[in-house]
C-alpha cells in the first residue's frame, strides 16, 4: 500500500526489427514493491534482465505491458505511461538513477555535473556547488579534480562522480546499478555508509550489487530476477 515504488505485471520484450523482427522476452509479470527506507537487491544470473528491470523502473526503457508506479508528490505516477514532462518531473524530484557509466558532457566540470540536479530542484547555485564539493570530497575525489570535466578520469573516478550526482539530491527513490563495481575498499565503505544514511532518511533503494559482501550489508532482502528462457524450458 505504502510502496515508494512498485511494479504491477511488468513485462518487457525487445523486438529487433533489423534482425528480421526477432522477439526477445526479458521480463515477464514482474511484481516488485519497495517501501521507504528499504533496500532491495536484484539477484539472478547475468543476462536475467536485472539491468533491463532497472531501466524500466527509471522509464529509460518502455514497458511491453504492466505498470511502474512511483509515489511522486503524494500521488502514484505510472512511469510507463506518463507523458515525457511528467517523467522529467518525477526524475527531478523523486527518482534517481546511478548507472554504471557516466555520460560526460564536454566542457562541464565535475562539480557542476554533481550540482546540476540540485539546481534543477531550486537549490541556489552556491549552495549546490558547496554540497557537490563536500560529497565529492567524501568520495575521496581530490578538490583539484572538481573543476575539470571528467572525460579523462579513470573508471573509478567517473563512477564516484556518478555516485555523488545520484546521492546529492536525496531522492525518495534511488536506483543503483553496480555502484561499487570499480571502487577500491575505502570507497566501497563510503558507498555502504551513503546507502545506510539514505535508508535512514527514508529513501527506497533498488540495487544491483555483484559484490555480495556489500550486498549483504546494505540489502534488507533479495528480489530474484529469473531468466525467462530457462524458466520456460
Amino acid at each position: 500500500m505504502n510502496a515508494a515504488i512498485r511494479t504491477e505485471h511488468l513485462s518487457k520484450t525487445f523486438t529487433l526489427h533489423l534482425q528480421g523482427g526477432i522477439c526477445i522476452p526479458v521480463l515477464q509479470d514482474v511484481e516488485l514493491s519497495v517501501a521507504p527506507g528499504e533496500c532491495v537487491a536484484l539477484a539472478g544470473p547475468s543476462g536475467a534482465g536485472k539491468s533491463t528491470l532497472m531501466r524500466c523502473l527509471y522509464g529509460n526503457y518502455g514497458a511491453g505491458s504492466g505498470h511502474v508506479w512511483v509515489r511522486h508528490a503524494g500521488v502514484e505516477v505510472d512511469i510507463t505511461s506518463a507523458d515525457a514532462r511528467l517523467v522529467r518531473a518525477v526524475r527531478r524530484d523523486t527518482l534517481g538513477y546511478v548507472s554504471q557509466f557516466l555520460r560526460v558532457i564536454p566542457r562541464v566540470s565535475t562539480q557542476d555535473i554533481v550540482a546540476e540536479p540540485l539546481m534543477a530542484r531550486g537549490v541556489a547555485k552556491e549552495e549546490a556547488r558547496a554540497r557537490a564539493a563536500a560529497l565529492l570530497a567524501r568520495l575521496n575525489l581530490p578538490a583539484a579534480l572538481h573543476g575539470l570535466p571528467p572525460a579523462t578520469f579513470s573508471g573509478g573516478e567517473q563512477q564516484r562522480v556518478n555516485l555523488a550526482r545520484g546521492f546529492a539530491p536525496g531522492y525518495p527513490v534511488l536506483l543503483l546499478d553496480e555502484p561499487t563495481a570499480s571502487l577500491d575498499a575505502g570507497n566501497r565503505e563510503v558507498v555502504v555508509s551513503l546507502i545506510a544514511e539514505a535508508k535512514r532518511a527514508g529513501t527506497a533503494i533498488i540495487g544491483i550489487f555483484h559484490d555480495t559482501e556489500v550486498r549483504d550489508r546494505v540489502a534488507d532482502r533479495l528480489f530474484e530476477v529469473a531468466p525467462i528462457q530457462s524458466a520456460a524450458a
Partner: protein
Amino acid sequence: MSDALMQASGLTLRFGAVAALDDVALEIHPGEVVAIVGESGSGKTTLLRVLAGMMAPASGQVLYAGEDVHAMGESARRRLMRSEWGFVHQNPRDGLRLRVSAGGNVGERLMAAGARHYGGIRAEAIEWLKRVEIDPARIDDMPEKFSGGMQQRLQIARTLVTQPKLVFMDEPTGGLDVSVQAKLLDLIRALVAELGLAVLIVTHDIAAARLLAHRILVMRRGQVVEQGLVDRVLDDPQHPYTQLLVSSVLAA
C-alpha cells in the same frame, strides 16, 4: 494540454509527389526542448518552417499562445519573430547581416524590439558577445571576417538578446568542425537552461539531440514515426526506422 506554448495538428504539405508533411501533430511547452530528427528529405526542416510561419501548410493548424499562426497575417508574424520568437539558421549568413558590425547585429534586434538608448544597447551587445564567448574587442568587426563557429555564436547572441520564449533552430551545428560543434552545443545547452527557453531544434545529429533535448520526434517521409522522452526513444527505440537510425551511429 492547455499550457502548451505552441500546438500544431493535422499538418499536411506535399511537394509534387513527395509528402513533406503527412498529418503531423506536435506541441511544445514553456522551457521544453524538443528535437526533430530524421534523415535529409524526411520533412523536418519543412516542419520547422511551417511551425515558424515561414511556409504555409496545405492543411492543418499551428497555434501559438492560442493564436493561429497562419491566419494572423504577415505583420503579426513578423512582430512575433522580432520579440517572442527566434530563429537560428543552419547557415549563419542567413541569420546575420554580414556587413553590419558584430555589435550592430546584436543591437539591431534590440532596437527592433524597442530599445533606443545607444549606450544601453552597446553594453547589452558587449554582454552578449561575452556570453557566447566572442571577445568584446571584436564588437566593431564585420562578421564576414569571422570563422563559421564564431558567426554561429553571433547568430545565437543576436537571436537570444531579446529573451524570446520560443526558439527554432535548424541544424545549428550543421557545417561546423566537430571541436567547434561541441563548444556550440554546450553553449546552447547552458543558455537554454539558464533562460528557460522553449526550443524546437532540427538536427540529424543523434548525440546532439540527446545532449540538448528533453523530448524527441523521429520523422520519416513526412510522418512522425516515433516520439517521446529523449533517452527512452534513443535507448529503447520501437519503430524499425528509429532502430536503424540509432544503430547507425558510430560510438566514438
